[in-house]
């Protein structure tokens, strides 16, 4: 082990006063956050500044921010590894560490934001693949597993090196040896490790992109102004890589200073990463311009309100400061310290300041994405107190946010204390080895199909008549007593063309429901969507003729009398008004309503001086009700998985898990470990003086000398 590496490994031994004070500070912030969270658990989210109008706040901003930061690492190191950029070697470990830690913190922010964290397991019991929240659970958990693996695999040879180092405690030696999975450094082990790392580097790139896209889809899948944007996926991915790369630069600056890693982190590393950061700042600027120009150019409807507030209104100062601090200033600073030769001496501190600004700007930008949109809903916010319509995070939220950052730093510190912050074996010489189940029990929906009644049904008419007038019978009136009358009622369904055109006839009944296609409906027209039955057509609107004949007691038809029609619905009585009988005492009512089912239609005669009142009832059948109750084109009852969304997600993340299982389960845990067990009796590799005897470079170095 050479002097450089001994110096590097001092981080593992750090236990000075400064270190202890730092850890104590972080732990106390963490404890304060835990206290705040305990209050939130006890009293509910009322402890936060969020209310019904602005229902997501700091927690979700933090979630998006930390997931963004997590892209730092893995994506950058994976891209650099795949493209075989030799200068990456001292950086990758730091970057991957940031990723793992940031993902843990980001994921837990969602848990903190939940109203019922005790029901978090419902996500697995009842999870619906159509929900962006479930996509996030799936994506973030897969990504976290992948990142831990990707952090761990390149660590294995270093663990072997550290375990063989003199002067470490027996507990830690045992731990390192256990974690190194019997690493002996045999050529076969190197081959397997390189293969595993290469596969992981390739797999992690689409995974990382998918994760931040899915995070953006939480917002983009809503209808809200400012979120309802098709560019959100790439916009978030670029923003995430931008903030992530800045976090890596920041970590490099700090670790270099604290641990004196000048031997490893040379200005060239800063320069290369700075150029990457600069190009991403331009890309990010481009996406910002694209996002706000397309909205601002049209300035339409609900988005106008949002943009007014962002550009000139109550969020304007915040918006423009974030734009300057997050994009313009770092861009100018980076151009200066990377461009002209005379400022190149300031590359490292300049980049440090620029990346600090980028990280702060990124966090503030997440807040700007979440809060102003929620506070500019479609319907105006009315009749709520000021505190409800304007979001201001409470001390609980700030405390938990501070605790999240403290936890991030603490975990990263512990990671740096436990494992070498720079990959030893990769930097040792210029040549480097290349390296659900858905819910309730199914019960088939059985539509209650009534047998279709014949088109013409002549129902027996209910001859109901008014009882012979009971009152008023005396001799009070001089005239003769009113005669009893009777009404006979019948109905028939007419063909639409036979039906006489009435004044109030509705012309051209609108076809109910247009052809619409919903990705998350239960029935899909995909060839593999099993059970995609043909839609039951709604029957055409029936034309019903209700006819009645009014007769007096002798059976003589009563002509030119007003007869009123009414239809009893489940909640009331629909009046059709009165019509006059014709010369034969007949009257007809044509009904062209959009109605299904059977209804009693009653026909009433009000009577006059000579005739008593009477009425008749007939049950009219308007045809069977369609089933189920919703228009088929609009049915969105998808309580379970839908194939169109389920299959792509399950396929993508499922294949990722297969890759993990192959890489870790088979290549590393099975073959590599057995290889080590059988090959060398002495598991501690002889590593002193930097003799690269254990190295079997797979690829020749592409690194020019002097780097």
């Amino acid at each position: 082990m050479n002097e450089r590496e001994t110096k590097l490994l001092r981080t593992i031994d750090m236990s000075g006063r400064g270190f202890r004070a730092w850890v104590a500070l972080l732990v106390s912030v963490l404890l304060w956050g835990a206290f705040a969270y305990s209050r939130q658990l006890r009293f509910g989210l009322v402890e936060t500044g969020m209310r019904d109008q602005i229902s997501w706040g700091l927690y979700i901003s933090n979630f998006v921010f930390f997931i963004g930061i997590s892209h730092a690492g893995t994506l950058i190191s994976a891209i650099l590894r795949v493209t075989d950029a030799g200068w990456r070697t001292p950086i990758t470990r730091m970057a991957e560490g940031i990723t793992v830690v940031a993902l843990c913190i980001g994921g837990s922010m969602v848990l903190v934001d939940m109203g019922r964290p005790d029901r978090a397991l419902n996500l697995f019991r009842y999870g619906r693949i159509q929900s962006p929240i479930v996509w996030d659970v799936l994506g973030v958990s897969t990504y976290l597993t992948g990142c831990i693996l990707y952090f761990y695999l390149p660590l294995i040879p270093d663990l072997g090196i550290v375990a063989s180092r003199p002067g470490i405690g027996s507990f830690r030696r045992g731990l390192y040896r256990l974690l190194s999975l019997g690493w002996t450094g045999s050529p076969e082990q190197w081959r397997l490790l390189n293969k595993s790392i290469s596969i992981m580097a390739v797999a992690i790139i689409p995974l990382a992109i998918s994760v931040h896209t899915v995070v953006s889809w939480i917002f983009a899948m809503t209808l809200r102004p400012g979120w309802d944007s098709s560019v959100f996926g790439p916009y978030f991915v670029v923003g995430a890589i931008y903030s992530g790369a800045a976090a890596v630069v920041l970590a490099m600056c700090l670790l270099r200073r604290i641990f004196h890693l000048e031997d490893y982190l040379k200005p060239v590393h800063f320069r290369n990463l700075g150029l990457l950061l600069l190009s991403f700042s331009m890309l990010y600027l481009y996406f910002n311009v694209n996002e706000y120009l397309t909205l601002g150019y049209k300035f339409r409807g609900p988005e106008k309100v949002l943009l007014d507030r962002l550009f000139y209104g109550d969020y304007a100062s915040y918006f423009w400061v974030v734009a300057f601090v997050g994009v313009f200033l770092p861009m100018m600073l980076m151009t200066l310290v990377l461009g002209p030769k005379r400022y190149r001496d300031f590359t490292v501190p300049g980049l440090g300041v620029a990346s600090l600004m980028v990280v702060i700007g990124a966090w503030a930008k997440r807040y700007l994405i979440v809060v102003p949109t929620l506070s500019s809903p479609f319907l105006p916010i009315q009749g709520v107190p000021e505190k409800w319509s304007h979001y201001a995070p409470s001390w609980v939220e700030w405390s938990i946010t501070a605790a999240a950052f403290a936890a991030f730093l603490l975990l990263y510190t512990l990671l740096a204390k436990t494992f070498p912050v720079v990959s030893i074996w990769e930097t040792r010489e210029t040549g480097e080895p290349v390296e659900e189940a858905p819910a309730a029990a199914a019960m088939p929906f059985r539509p209650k199909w009534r047998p279709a009644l014949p088109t013409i049904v002549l129902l027996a008419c209910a001859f109901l008549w008014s009882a012979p007038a009971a009152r008023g019978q005396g001799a009070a009136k001089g005239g003769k007593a009113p005669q009893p009358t009777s009404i006979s009622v019948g109905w028939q369904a007419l063909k639409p063309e036979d039906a006489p055109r009435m004044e109030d006839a509705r012309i051209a009944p609108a076809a109910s429901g247009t052809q619409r296609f919903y990705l998350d409906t239960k029935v899909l027209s995909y060839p593999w969507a099993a059970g995609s039955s043909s839609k039951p057509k709604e029957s055409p609107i029936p034309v019903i003729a209700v006819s009645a004949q009014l007769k007096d007691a002798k059976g003589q038809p009563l002509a030119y009398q007003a007869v009123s029609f009414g239809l009893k619905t489940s909640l009331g009585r629909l009046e059709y008004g009165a019509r006059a009988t014709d010369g034969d005492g007949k009257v007809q009512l044509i009904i062209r309503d959009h109605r299904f089912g059977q209804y009693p239609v009653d026909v009433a005669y009000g009577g006059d001086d000579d005739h008593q009142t009477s009425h008749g009832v007939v049950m009219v059948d308007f045809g069977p009700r369609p089933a189920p109750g919703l228009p088929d084109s609009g049915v969105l009852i998808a309580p379970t998985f839908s194939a169109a969304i389920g299959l792509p997600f399950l396929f993508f993340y499922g294949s990722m898990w297969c890759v993990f299982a192959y890489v870790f389960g088979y290549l590393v845990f099975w073959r590599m470990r057995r290889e080590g067990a059988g090959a060398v009796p002495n598991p501690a590799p002889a590593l002193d003086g930097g003799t690269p005897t254990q190295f079997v470079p797979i690829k020749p170095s592409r690194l020019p000398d002097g780097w």
Partner: protein
Amino acid sequence: MEGTRRSFVQFLARGTGLLLVSGVAIRSLAGHMFRTVLPPRSVAPENRRWVMVFDLAKCDGCKDCTKACTKMHFVPPMQEWIKVYEVEDNQAAGSYFLPRTCMHCDNPPCVRGCPVGATYKRTDGIVMMDQDRCIGCRNCIAQCPYSARFFNWGEPPHTPEEMKVAYSVEHNYPHRKGVVEKCILCPEMLRMGMLPACADTCKMGAIYFGDEFEDAVTNGKGETMQFSKITEKGAGFRLMEELGTEPRVYYLPPVNRKYPSPEEKHTHEATKV
């Protein structure tokens, strides 16, 4: 070995075969995974298609509906499951009152986004809310363009009557901390053949409720109208039609109002003071 044309064709044929076989396998697998039957809770007790019609010409903004709803469901404070907005489409048009319930959309964004199926669509059109299952992620609140969803930020205050009954998705109380609340169209009342509380209460008769299959809607004054006729003749509209949510709540435009407009009401109140 240099690939021959023959071997390349064979290679393509094998690939096609593999694709076909995996396609058949996925199809049969999907048939098991993606069930097309509805769970029992999604099946409404009756085959209905509920609709609601607000006649804006009759709404005088008295908020009796809100009070009745709050009383009936023991709605926690600061929540208005039916809320009366005062809106102004443009400066020249003057303002009107706009009662807003849950729109019970046929393409409901909230149901789409719910991760656990706590909010779901019933076959009679009601968007239900199962607070035994809700995890409080508030994605549905973000999804809803009508601001019709509320959250129990803290433990809601309780009354003895509220606590007397056991929780049921059909009345959504007793209320609990950390779950989402919304209008559910009083399924209990509908079971008994009665109007929802808001429609029943409205003195102006502005709220009509009924079954689209019956093509009839009834208001609290007992007036029954033909649904398709009043929406067609009255130029009924739905809120934010352009969002494609397909609401089940219709509005009749505020024409020929017979009560003071919001402005007149305000000036009247101001002069009274």
